[in-house]
């Protein structure tokens, strides 16, 4: 009836939880559950992506192990959630990539770095690659012309974006199996607010669970650093692109100009945030976590960290002889990050956002 063991277990748990409902004040998962009497795979994948893994329901539940009902919603939904990325991915041939994500990301990153390195080596002599360029010489554009760089990354982004859009469409359709809704613009606005504040990481107000008696909010803090760091870096690139094509202002920019300021602040967030998230993961109770997709989780966090690290290093050392190597590293890592986005942990943000949109619509129409 259910396609995986985790989905069958999630179905069992939702039957338990729907008979109890003590947790309905904690987050969005339980009110969404209450709108249903039976749970198809699409429903369970949707509920799993609504779950922010705060762990609140696990410490509040009277039926967790050693109780014979053995209820563990956060862990089960974590497995279902990870599996849901594979289940809805476009193209389906890529579904196996999620389980071997760490390996795939590592290999691809090595390949892309090598490609940039070899590419630049072929165009320039090794002397050109290992010497310093002043900003006045155009810095990294001396090694790789702007249009080439923009062209490569536009192509990479377009491929990634297409895969992400089609994956989300699969997820959205499957989530509607048993409760039809019509989405309204207000739902998107509501989801933006819920996602921007990570409202449902609160566990009903006490913060995400790290120690049985003490709720802390550190994961949310580090996630905010990571997410907003990423967005600032994205903004930095967008502004720089506008400068280039609209205003004809070419990089590099002085330290006080918008692209550099945004990129630096974002980059610092993207250094501290991922480290904090990795440490928080180690500190959390293993009972509420799932280990089977660790490669995917760690892989994504490490890629974000490396993107920022190499980016900041490139900015600081762009007039030294190390620039050529750093440029190949940075571009290789960014290219690998973008290429693996539809096939890794990055999708959690999009699926969760989609689930939040759906939840807003369900509340509006069915509660």
């Amino acid at each position: 009836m259910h396609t995986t063991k985790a989905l069958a277990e999630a179905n069992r748990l939702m039957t338990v939880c729907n008979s109890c409902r003590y947790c309905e004040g904690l987050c969005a998962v339980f009110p969404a559950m209450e709108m249903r009497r039976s749970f198809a795979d699409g429903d369970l994948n949707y509920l799993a992506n609504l779950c922010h893994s705060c762990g609140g329901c696990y410490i509040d539940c009277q039926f967790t192990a050693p109780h014979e009902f053995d209820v563990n919603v956060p862990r089960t939904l974590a497995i279902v959630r990870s599996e849901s990325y594979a289940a809805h991915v476009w193209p389906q041939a890529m579904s196996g990539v999620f389980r071997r994500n760490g390996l795939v990301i590592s290999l691809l990153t090595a390949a892309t770095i090598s490609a940039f390195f070899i590419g630049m080596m072929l165009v320039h002599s090794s002397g050109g690659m290992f010497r310093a360029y002043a900003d006045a010489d155009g810095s990294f554009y001396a090694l790789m012309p702007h249009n080439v760089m923009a062209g490569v990354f536009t192509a990479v982004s377009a491929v990634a974006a297409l895969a992400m859009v089609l994956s989300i469409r699969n997820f959205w359709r499957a989530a509607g199996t048993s409760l039809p809704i019509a989405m309204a613009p207000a739902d998107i606005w509501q989801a933006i607010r819920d996602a921007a504040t990570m409202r449902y990481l609160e566990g009903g107000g006490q913060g995400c669970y790290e120690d049985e008696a003490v709720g802390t909010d550190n994961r949310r803090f580090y996630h905010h650093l990571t997410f907003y760091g990423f967005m600032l870096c994205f903004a930095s690139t967008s502004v720089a692109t506008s400068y280039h094509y609209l205003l004809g202002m070419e990089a590099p920019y002085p330290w006080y100009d918008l692209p550099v300021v945004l990129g630096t602040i974002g980059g610092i967030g993207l250094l501290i945030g991922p480290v904090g998230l990795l440490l928080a993961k180690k500190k959390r109770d293993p009972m509420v976590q799932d280990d089977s997709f660790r490669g995917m989780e760690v892989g994504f966090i490490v890629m974000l960290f490396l993107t920022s690290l190499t980016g900041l290093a490139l900015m600081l050392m762009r007039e030294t002889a190390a620039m050529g190597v750093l440029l190949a590293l940075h571009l290789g890592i960014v290219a690998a990050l973008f290429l693996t986005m539809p096939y890794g942990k990055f999708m959690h943000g999009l699926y969760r956002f989609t689930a939040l949109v759906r939840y807003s619509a369900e509340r509006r129409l069915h509660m």
Partner: protein
Amino acid sequence: MEEQRQDYDVLVIGGGNAALCAAIAARSAGASVLVLEAATKFYRGGNTRHTRNMRCAHDRATETLSGPYTEEEFWDDLLRVTGGETNEDLARHMIHQSKAMLGWIAKQGVRFQPSLGGTLSLGRTNSFFLGGGRSMLNALYKTAGGLGVDVLYEAEVVELEIEDGFFCSATYMHNGERRNVGARSLVAAAGGFESNIEWLKEGWGEIADNFLIRGTSNNRGTVLRMLLDNGVDRIGDPTQCHAVAIDARAPKFDGGIITRLDCVVFGIVVNKLSQRFYDEGEDIWPKRYAIWGRLVAAQPDQIAYIIFDSPSLRRFMPSLYPPIEASTIEELAGKLGLDPAALARTVGDFNAAVQPGTFNDAILDDCRTEGLTPPKSHWAQKIETVPFYAYPVRPGITFTYMGVRVNKQARMIMADGRPAANMFAAGEIMAGNVLGRGYAAGIGMTVGSVFGKISGEGAAGNAHN
């Protein structure tokens, strides 16, 4: 070998809501406090783990309560559900104190939410714990720990040294050792005896073997028995207990809320002989659900079956186990181990007696039977639409009423009528003082919190004198 003994101002036996309120109140009043909880850390808190709300009087609506609930209205409700089997003085005192309890318990870290889905009728009177009873316990334990209350788990009290109504010390087992601890005052908050099947048999006979216990397996009444044996006055009688009909497939202990069934009013209930035995539509379900445990206990083998058909499947809150399903009544009987012809006859007779009416499960509607014994007075609809469903049910014991007598200070009263010198009681172990029979949602927690706080304060004051 007995370990070196450390004495406390206040010893609290038990680890649920009442015990923790007592411990927090006593510690806040400056007393040193030890809590001895027989259960493991996971199972700490006894039946509080399975609770979800508390009934407190309040004069106006709050963020989580939809309207006022006056002391007078609370008293009327208590009088009605107990049929007068309550101590008015004590009950009114508790109700008055309950008003301040909402604020006090929130100050201890307990968080509230609006009433849960499926419990709309309680939205005005009852305050629901965010995350349920275990969440409430987690908050109380955290607060108690922060205040410096000592808590020992897996520490079952096996002996009380009491001299003429004066508590001296308690002996408990911990890590396989016998240990002794002295205290200036005792708060007994160790629950009832519903998990002690042998004790239940004293009142019920052998049929108690077929009872399921909805809550903790730790409520064996050992502390209650020791107190009664030491001359504390008894209140209530051993056959009284809160019993509802729960899914017969539930575990022997600790099935909690999710094994309850709210579908009696939508069908018929038959015993193992396929005979109906009580009016399923006598009154609205919240007023009748607590009689069905006793009714099923009186049937052969203490088992019964709720039979209904497909239009009713979604009219009640879902429960843990799926209903047993069949496409004919005979097939259903076969799956239940009943005589197919007998069940078909009972359903047929019932269907033939159903009068036309307008079904409405929100009121006492006009759908009833004519010429049937026993009748079904409301919500009687023919059982005729496939698939047919059944739930097997057994008596599920929620709690017991027999306990120790106390006064308004939660001080135990000895059999000769004198107040005990330094012994207090709170929670289920003394609930019978205000709740001689019957029940209304959330009152158990009110008894626990209010008398817990009173007893803790009293015990601390006692220790200082």
